[in-house]
């Protein structure tokens, strides 16, 4: 799980262009949206694309993202359970 969390942090930094940020700067338990990384709705769409492209996970309902994107750890747990690649 820790390996997946670190990989996910690197992917998030890459797809969301989080300039100057390193994986260790991201708290895997902190909220991704709001007070955490301060991501916005376009970032949420990018994360949905990341799930599909890198892990073969298609969200049926965009509202599922609210639960899945609570934190990097929650996201990694979801990927672990649902990944198809």
């Amino acid at each position, binding site marked *: 799980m820790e390996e997946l969390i670190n990989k996910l942090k690197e992917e998030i930094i890459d797809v969301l262009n989080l300039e100057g940020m390193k994986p260790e700067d991201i708290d895997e338990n902190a909220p991704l949206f709001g007070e955490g990384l301060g991501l916005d709705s376009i970032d949420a769409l*990018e994360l949905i694309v990341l799930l599909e492209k890198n892990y073969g996970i298609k969200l049926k309902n965009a509202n599922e993202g609210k639960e899945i994107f609570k934190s990097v750890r929650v996201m990694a747990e979801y990927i672990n359970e649902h990944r198809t690649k």
Partner: protein
Amino acid sequence: MTEQSFNTLIKCEITASTAKVNGQTILQRTDASEDWFSQLYHAIGMQYPKFFKMDRLCKAGILGAELLLKDFDYDRENVKADWGIILMNSASSLDNDRHFQETIATDNYYPSPAVFVYTLANIVTGEIAIRHKTGGESSFYVMPSFDEQLMNTLVNQAYMANPELTHIICGWVNVDGEEVDVRMKVVER
């Protein structure tokens, strides 16, 4: 010729190698290996992580607005209905449109929402409005070339149509491949 109903308070220019405020060079590009817009962002001490998510047209516009307003005495905390934005260019969002096209040119592509969202030229006015909390007139025109007289006419018309407007960030923001041509100013009624 329309009589001018405003005063210019500050001007800036950005090309592919130089940034100027009121004719004074602020930064000259020396390192061609580093992205010019990022160099300028760091050189003026800008702190706005969203900058790095923007397309090049928005980066150019947001940097122009930053050069104009970073030392300007104005209300940074509240949305200002008395501030407007009027911009124009000739290349529209073509620079980013090409980039988006490249990202979808393969089979089984995944279109990037973050790239797609910038395939409209007027997004740059929105980015500047968000950054500087302007809430008045906001418009973007795609024209064959820069026409300062037309720009001034549009500013005059905006002042006539919006009595509450006091300040307008206006000018030309054109980015197309290697070409960078930013000529912006802040005017006051």
